[in-house]
């Protein structure tokens, strides 16, 4: 039975049909946001995640930065080993940020922190938090091994075994790092919080690209010459990919009728802070200096700050969408079901 066709629970027909954009030069249409029908005394229909946004957002940032820098530095030293020795040493420290700073943040956010080890009782494919626990464990083990063996190997030039062990562990941390820099998007998407659930694919693309941008930007800080230019180009490419995914996800929010969540302080922080100052601005700076090779650390620092702000603010906008029954009810209409036959079906 198609719920959208049932008179008793079908949403009231909106007064105006959804707007259509006829030409790319026209401004993006504003879709009606929010539920037009009854609510229960305006009370929330959902419960917002009891996460501390700064703490969990901070973890997501460090996880992305560490994971991506493991991946990028491993790629760099495989492709051009001699040019990347300094990069490899810097990556040793950056990859330790996730286990050393990120993991304690996660444990701090538990409401019963002394039972953190219960996360290791099970492995569940339906729970990105469980998947992430194992990714973080694998990443931490290989990052410590890679950094330790690399550091030791540097001091014993003849002990080739240490270097080989370090390379092996780095590849393992690079693979786990790819997962670490993006599983957090699946963690948010696999909830009933409307804003996180509305665009799983583009949210994950944003998270992945943002992680790669921070990985490359933090490796580039203090780097000179060709390696610096390569890293700048990777940061710029990642920022461009992130911007594209950001536009796609915002279009999706608008089509699901929940774009109103951005007309709040958290939403303005996401749009004005994270996207405008932390994404578009560094992208423009990279664009201006890419050909000559920039010296300024400013675009890299803006990228890092923008990514941190993005992770924190997206948590806040999600909470807004869970607490506002008009957004929750609008999102839980049959036309937003997977496979429903409404114009808002374009996947994103």
């Amino acid at each position, binding site marked *: 039975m198609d719920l959208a066709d049932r008179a008793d629970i079908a949403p009231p027909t909106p007064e105006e049909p959804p707007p259509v954009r006829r030409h790319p030069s026209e401004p993006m249409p504003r879709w009606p946001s929010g539920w037009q029908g009854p609510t229960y005394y305006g*009370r*929330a229909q959902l419960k917002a995640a009891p996460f501390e946004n700064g703490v969990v957002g901070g973890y997501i940032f460090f996880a992305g930065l560490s994971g991506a820098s493991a991946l990028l530095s491993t790629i760099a030293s495989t492709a051009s080993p001699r040019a990347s020795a300094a990069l490899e040493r810097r990556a040793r420290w950056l990859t330790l940020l996730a286990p050393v700073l990120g993991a304690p943040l996660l444990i701090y956010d538990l409401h019963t922190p002394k039972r953190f080890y219960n996360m290791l009782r099970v492995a569940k494919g339906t729970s990105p938090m469980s998947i992430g626990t194992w990714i973080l464990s694998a990443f931490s083990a290989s990052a410590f091994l890679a950094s330790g063996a690399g550091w030791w190997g540097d001091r014993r030039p003849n002990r080739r075994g240490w270097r080989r062990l370090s390379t092996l562990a780095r590849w393992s941390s690079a693979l786990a790092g790819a997962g670490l820099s993006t599983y957090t998007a699946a963690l948010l998407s696999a909830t009933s919080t409307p804003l996180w659930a509305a665009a799983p694919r583009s949210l994950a693309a944003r998270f992945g690209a943002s992680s790669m941008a921070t990985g490359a930007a933090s490796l580039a800080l203090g780097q000179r010459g060709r390696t610096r230019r390569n890293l700048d180009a990777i940061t710029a490419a990642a920022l461009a990919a992130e911007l594209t995914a950001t536009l796609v996800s915002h279009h999706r929010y608008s089509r699901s009728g929940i774009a109103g969540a951005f007309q709040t302080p958290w939403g303005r922080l996401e749009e004005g802070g994270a996207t405008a100052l932390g994404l578009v601005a560094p992208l423009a700076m990279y664009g201006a200096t890419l050909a000559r090779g920039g010296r300024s650390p400013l675009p890299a620092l803006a990228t890092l700050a923008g990514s941190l702000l993005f992770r924190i603010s997206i948590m806040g906008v999600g909470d807004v969408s869970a607490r506002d029954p008009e957004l929750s009810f609008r999102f839980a209409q049959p036309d937003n079901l997977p496979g429903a036959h409404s114009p808002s079906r374009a996947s994103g």
Partner: protein
Amino acid sequence: MEMHPRVREQTRSEFDTLIPDESELTANVRIEPGRAYGFFTDTTVCIGCKACEVACKEWNNLPADNIGLTGESYDNTGALSANTWRHVSFIEKPVLRHDLQQPFQSGWLMMSDVCKHCHNAPCLEACPTGAIFKTEFDTVVVQQDICNGCGYCVPACPFGVVDVSKVDGKAHKCTLCYDRLKGGLEPACAKSCPTDSIQFGELHKLQARAQERVAELHALGVANAYLYGTPGAAGATGDLQYLNAFFLLTDRPETYNLPAAPTRPANRVAPALTSGLATVAGLAVAALALFARRW
């Protein structure tokens, strides 16, 4: 519901021992592991007495949440929470049926809300410690000795049910009286409901009984009666399959603070993971090309 023959054996009014399989006497249900049990909440006979809320608090030893008045009809409880596992909502409508009803007559809708004990329970699927599990009675329960209070079940629930307690830092919600079921007792709320608005029983029997009730109401002229949470109905959308605690409603789900078409969050894990990894892989290939070029 016909009376069970065993009722006649119980002539005493005071008990010093448990009646074996007491639920057979009170709900005409024998509780056996391996079968699916649930609640059918028929809102058309709810009188808003809140006996279920009180019985739940008493049996489960739960503290009060809000001592005071909300100004929202007779609902001073507000919402389900870590300490409130049954919640009676009150909706005052001016006129329900223009043909039969005087405007001053009851325009109240009342519904006793509870954890839906979803078939594909999103809270359970999200739980990273395995603290939330499916019991032998096909109900969804949080094991308090395992929960570490990560809070991930809270945003996972499409119905805003489960909650982390600020007192003990663990997630709490209705257990469908797991302890009582183990002892052969009907859940406290259903046992205390004076109008049988809350019915406890074996799920497939409850579903059949609910269909009959809808047909009966339709025949009586209540055309807007429908089920929420049975297979294929509103509330059981998006791959949730069905809810072990389901409802008979007479107005839009949103009126009762229920979502019309919730979805199963676990279905978004694979799309998000593949898209994220594809983005990272694409950028990694670009990085490899950059670092490997010889110019």
